[in-house]
C-alpha cells in the first residue's frame, strides 16, 4: 500500500517564478491496484511519480509505503522496492553494456554488488526464456550492446529489467510516449501481461487516453496538482473515451487553457 498524505510542494518559493504544484495532495493506492494517471502538461503527474520515488523532495507531508514513513529516505533506498520505467528508453538500460550484462545487473537488484562474476553464464538460458515472450528477437542478440537496439527493443528490455526482481510497486512514467504507435502497442500489451502475471501494484502515467481506459482498474485525472477524477472498478469499466475527452474539455474551458 502506498499513501501520499497532505503533500505540499512549491517550486521557487518567494520569487516571481513561484509555482505551487501540490497543496494538500492526498492519494491512497491499495495493493493490487493498477492506476492509470492522465492529465494535461504541468498537471503534476510526473511530479507525483518523482515525489514517490524520491527524485524530488516535498516541502511538507508524508509518503507512507507499506505502513512505513519513507519521506526522509533517499531515492536509491526507496528504489529497492520500486521498479521504474521512464519515457526515454535510454534511461532504463545501460547502452554500453550487452543485453546479457544488463539483465545480470538487473537481476542482482537488492543483493550485494560484490567482486563475484557480473554475468553468470548459468543464467543465460533463463534470460533467453525471458526474452522470447517479448517477441522482438532480443533472445538472438544477447551479446549485442544495448545502444544498437531500437527504442522499442530498449523499452521492452527496460520493462523486463525493472520487474525481474520482487518489487512492491511498478512506476511507469509515460513509458510509451517516445515510441511509434505500433511499438507502443507492443510495449503496452507486454506491460499488461507482466503486471497481471506478477500481480504488481502499478502506477502508469500516460497521455494516451485509450491506454488509460483499456488498462488498469483505477483511473486518475490530474489537474493543477489535484486529482479531479478518481474512478475504480465498474465505474471505470463503464467509462468511455468520450467521457474522458469531455472532462478534458471541461477543465480546459474552466481554466482557460
Amino acid at each position: 500500500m502506498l499513501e501520499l498524505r497532505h503533500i505540499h510542494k512549491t517550486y521557487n518559493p518567494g520569487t516571481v517564478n513561484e509555482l505551487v504544484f501540490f497543496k494538500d495532495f492526498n492519494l491512497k493506492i491499495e495493493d493490487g491496484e493498477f492506476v492509470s494517471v492522465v492529465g494535461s502538461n504541468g498537471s503534476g503527474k510526473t511530479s507525483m511519480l518523482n515525489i514517490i520515488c524520491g527524485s524530488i523532495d516535498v516541502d511538507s507531508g508524508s509518503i507512507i509505503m507499506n505502513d512505513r514513513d519513507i519521506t526522509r529516505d533517499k531515492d536509491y533506498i526507496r528504489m529497492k522496492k520500486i521498479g521504474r520505467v521512464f519515457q526515454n528508453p535510454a534511461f532504463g538500460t545501460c547502452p554500453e553494456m550487452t543485453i546479457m550484462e544488463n539483465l545480470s545487473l538487473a537481476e542482482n537488484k537488492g543483493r550485494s554488488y560484490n567482486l563475484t562474476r557480473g554475468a553468470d553464464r548459468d543464467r543465460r538460458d533463463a534470460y533467453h526464456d525471458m526474452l522470447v515472450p517479448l517477441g522482438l528477437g532480443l533472445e538472438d542478440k544477447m551479446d549485442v550492446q544495448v545502444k544498437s537496439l531500437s527504442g522499442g527493443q530498449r523499452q521492452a528490455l527496460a520493462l523486463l529489467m525493472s520487474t525481474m526482481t520482487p518489487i512492491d510497486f511498478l512506476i511507469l512514467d509515460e513509458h510509451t510516449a517516445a515510441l511509434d504507435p505500433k511499438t507502443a502497442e507492443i510495449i503496452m500489451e507486454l506491460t499488461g501481461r507482466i503486471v497481471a502475471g506478477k500481480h504488481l501494484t502499478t502506477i502508469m502515467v500516460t497521455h494516451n487516453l485509450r491506454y488509460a481506459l483499456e488498462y488498469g482498474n483505477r483511473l486518475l485525472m490530474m489537474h493543477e496538482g489535484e486529482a479531479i477524477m478518481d474512478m475504480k472498478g465498474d465505474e471505470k469499466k463503464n467509462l468511455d473515451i468520450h467521457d474522458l475527452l469531455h472532462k478534458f474539455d471541461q477543465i480546459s474551458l474552466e481554466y482557460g487553457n
Partner: protein
Amino acid sequence: MALFISVLEQGFIYAVMALGIYITYKILDFPDLTVDGSFPFGAAIAAVMITKGAPAILTLPVSFLAGCFVGMLTGVIHVKLHVRDLLSGIIMMTALYTVNLRLMGRANIPLYSNDTIFDNPAVNAVFGGGLDAWKAVIILLVIVIVVKLLLDWYLRTKSGFLLRAVGSNDKIVTALGVDKGRVKILGLALCNGLCTMGGCLYAQEQRYADVSMGTGTMVIGLASVIIGTTLFRKKTNVIGVTTSVIIGSVIYKACVALAVHFLKNADDMKMITSVLFLIILVISMDKKRKVASD
C-alpha cells in the same frame, strides 16, 4: 635503440596511469584533474620510501593504496559537497602539490645510488648480460599486463558492472537501489590508485622524484586513451579496450619522443605534448563525425 627502449619503458609506465584515466574519462565520464597531483604523489612516495631504506617492491602497493585514498577525497568533494567535477579535481591537484613538497621535504630527490624495482641485486642476478638493457622494459611489461588483467577482471565483476553503468546512465544505478555517489567515489579511487602507482614507477625508472613532474599527466593519459580507443574503434569489449589503451600510450610516447629527438630540445616537451594531443583530439573528432555520417 636506447630511444626505442626508453619509449617502451615510459609508454608502459604511462599505460598504468592511462588505464586509471580510462576509468574516469571513458567509464565514469568524469574529467579528473586530480591525476596531475597524484602522479607526482606516487613519485614522492617512492622517493621517500626508497631513501628511507624500504624495499622497492613495497612502494607499489603503498602508492596504489595512498592514491586510492586521494581519489576517494576527490570523490567525496564532488559527491558529498556537490562541487563540480573539474573543480573537485583542481582543488585536490593544488592541495597535493603541498602534500608532495612536505612529503619530500624539498622540490626533488635523486635516487641514483638506491635500489629500485628495476635495479636491485635480485633483479640484476636474473637479468645478467645481454638482457640488462631490457630489464626495465620486461619488468614494466609484466606489471602492465598484471594491472590490465586485474582491471579486466574487476570490470566484469558485479561491482565493475555498476561502475560501467554509472558512467553511461546513472539513473539505472539509482533504479537498482544503489547509491550512485558511492560508485563514483570508488571509480575515482581506482583511477588515482593507478595514477599514483604510475608516478611511483616513473620516479624509479627516471631515478629521481620532482614535485613538478605531474604537469600534463591528464593530457598524456587522455591522449593515450583517445589514440587507443580511436585506432581500435571496433574493439568494444572490456578486454579489447584496455589493450587499446596500453598500445595508445606507447604510440603517444613514441610520437613525443620522436618530436623531441628531431627538435633536439627537451625543454619543448610539454608544448609538443599538448600540441600532439590537440592534433589527436581533432583527428579523433573527425573520425567520429565520419562514422556518424556513414
